[in-house]
């Protein structure tokens, strides 16, 4: 890596030149000036999330128990005439509750596990053919209406990318106020070990005369729900 060492040497020399004349005075009031009180403000977080999520054109299904969410998703699948639905492994939830409801409603369900490299192209094709993808997020951000989705073999990242309809749920305890809190909660170890996507609304473009069109590459429709178990 001779080039690398040359570059580092170049940078060292460059940095020896005097620093920019007036270094910018950073303001003293820190960025984290928003009040935080997680449990007391849970309801506020929920309503904030719902508002922001709708503002980025997500469709909010509501605050639901796992069973209610499963029923709601199954009826959604019926409404859109879905046949094949991909369900990722839960984070806090047992995804079986979704699987059962969907199967009872007559959908075929695609689940995931560890794959050999050889099986990958076929698995991707199958996932791309699914009508709906269902995933549980690690965290959700109230101030921006964002889901933080972390990938794993049984919970592929493209579950929220390839199917035209995406459903993402999150446990109410994993609702945080802002991006800084979400990144703090995820932490460096998790971020460097997994594929992480922050998802804020359905895929969109404004490339033609700045007109917003949804579903340009990823899902055209994004449903979101907050799971608040009855006894929780």
């Amino acid at each position: 890596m001779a080039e690398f060492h040359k570059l580092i040497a170049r940078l060292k020399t460059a940095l020896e030149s005097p620093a920019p004349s007036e270094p910018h005075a950073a303001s003293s009031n820190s960025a984290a000036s928003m009040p935080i009180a997680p449990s007391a403000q849970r309801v506020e977080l929920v309503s904030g999330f719902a508002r922001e999520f709708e503002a980025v054109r997500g469709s909010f299904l509501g605050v639901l128990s796992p069973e209610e969410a499963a029923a709601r998703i199954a009826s959604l699948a019926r409404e859109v005439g879905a046949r094949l639905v991909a369900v990722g492994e839960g984070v806090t939830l047992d995804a079986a509750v979704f699987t059962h409801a969907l199967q009872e409603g007559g959908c075929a369900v695609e689940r995931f596990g560890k794959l050999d490299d050889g099986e990958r192209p076929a698995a991707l094709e199958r996932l791309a053919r699914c009508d709906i993808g269902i995933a549980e997020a690690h965290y959700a951000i109230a101030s921006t209406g964002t889901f933080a989705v972390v990938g794993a073999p049984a919970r592929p990242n493209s579950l929220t990318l390839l199917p035209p309809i995406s459903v993402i749920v999150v446990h109410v305890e994993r609702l945080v106020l802002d991006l800084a809190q979400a990144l703090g909660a995820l932490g460096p170890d998790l971020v460097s070990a997994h594929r992480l996507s922050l998802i804020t609304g359905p895929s969109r473009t404004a490339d033609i005369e700045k007109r917003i069109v949804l579903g340009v590459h990823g899902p055209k429709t994004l449903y979101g729900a907050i799971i608040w178990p009855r006894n929780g």
Partner: protein
Amino acid sequence: MARSPAKADFFEASRKAVADHELHRKLQSASDRHLDHVDETRAEFPPFESERDTARRIKEESIAHLDELLIELRRRLEENGCSVFFAADAEQARNYIVGVAKKNGLKRAVKGKSMTTEEIGLNRALIEAGLEVTETDLGEYIVQLRGEPPSHIITPAIHLSKEDVGALFAEKLQMPYTAEPEELTAEARKRLRSAFLGADLGITGANFAIAETGTLVVVENEGNGRMSCTLPDTYVAVVGIEKVIPKLADLSHFLEILARTATGQKLTTYTNFINGPRRAGELDGPREVHVVVLDGGRSAMLADPVMREALYCIRCGACLNVCPVYRRVGGHAYGSTYPGPIGSIVSPNLFGSAAGHLPFASTLCGACRDICPVRIDIPRMLLHIRWKESEDETRAIPWPRGAARARSGVVRFARLARHPRVARMLGRIAGAFLRPFARDGFLRRMPPPFNNWTAVRDFPVPRPRVRRDTAQEADSSGRVP
């Protein structure tokens, strides 16, 4: 498409662009809409100003420790299983990527939007090496079909109307003509989806590279970047050395200001974190990840205490939209991958003297400095470059003819201005003499040596009583009119 940024034709190109009223309308409406959104989102977010300061400070510190940060970034990326290549210039970067493509026998590349790959002219190199290259960002896809470079770093097809795109798709994609953005987008989705599923090479840039975790961060709205780094078996990211930030926790400060200024969103739809090849048993992600870290003139900017500030740029594109020159002439007139105010600064550094005229393509009005999320003082740098240019004997662009004379004219004027009474008297005489030749109070043409002035702008004829500043008026005479 790679484009030689090597034509000192800004003045010619801008003359044409200014005459193009349709272009003017498109640019104006697109950038106005953008600025309205930006104002709104910023106003709704009280910590915006302090986030700006924090982001600025982090950039200052990162750039000041660039050497150490790059060493750490490289180590962490390699630990995550990436191959890291440091490219001193565009050619090395291109050769490396073409080498990867050859070694793996790759045929079909999909690209997310990346100004850095535009900068190094990657597409042409890959096409020459026999690959099929598809731009997958809708705007980039459109300009690629037209055989054009992008005209804006955030919205590449900003110079086109929906009718333009409709006609283009009808011609190139053989679809029935429509000017409905919905339908045009649906057609592009269909074509590009199959390109993604069939591609063996994915290429994107990155907005940030986190040293602590060895993670690249790509922000986007469409999902094409996410596809490019998820589906193909080989993935290449091209990243400028200035993109590195120290810690994961630093990232939020940038993300809180980037989308708000770039598009007026709170966050972009997707923020993708890429940190290496897929792990055993995983469905997603490439088998090989190559990170090309590009110097390409950046270390020279680092060495210049004034220019260093340009490395803080997070490429939000806002300075383009507020720039009165950009709004008038559009991106293509600049003839560089990076147009607009920030482009006028970095282009001469990245592309050499060929872009040396761009720093002169500004009115120094300061709008770019005010909107810049990391508070880059662009006018100050433009002045600095202009000054360096004027000191440099081997300057890239010849002074306009008569510049020396113009200079001495200014010196003479300065001497004259020191004697207000004489100046006033001369002004009155000249005014009386010139007034009959004026139209609407301006002279369109004057005889030499003053034709230097009227060649590029009109000259206001002195009024019968020269109006002066009252402060100046209380001069030696003590008389106030």
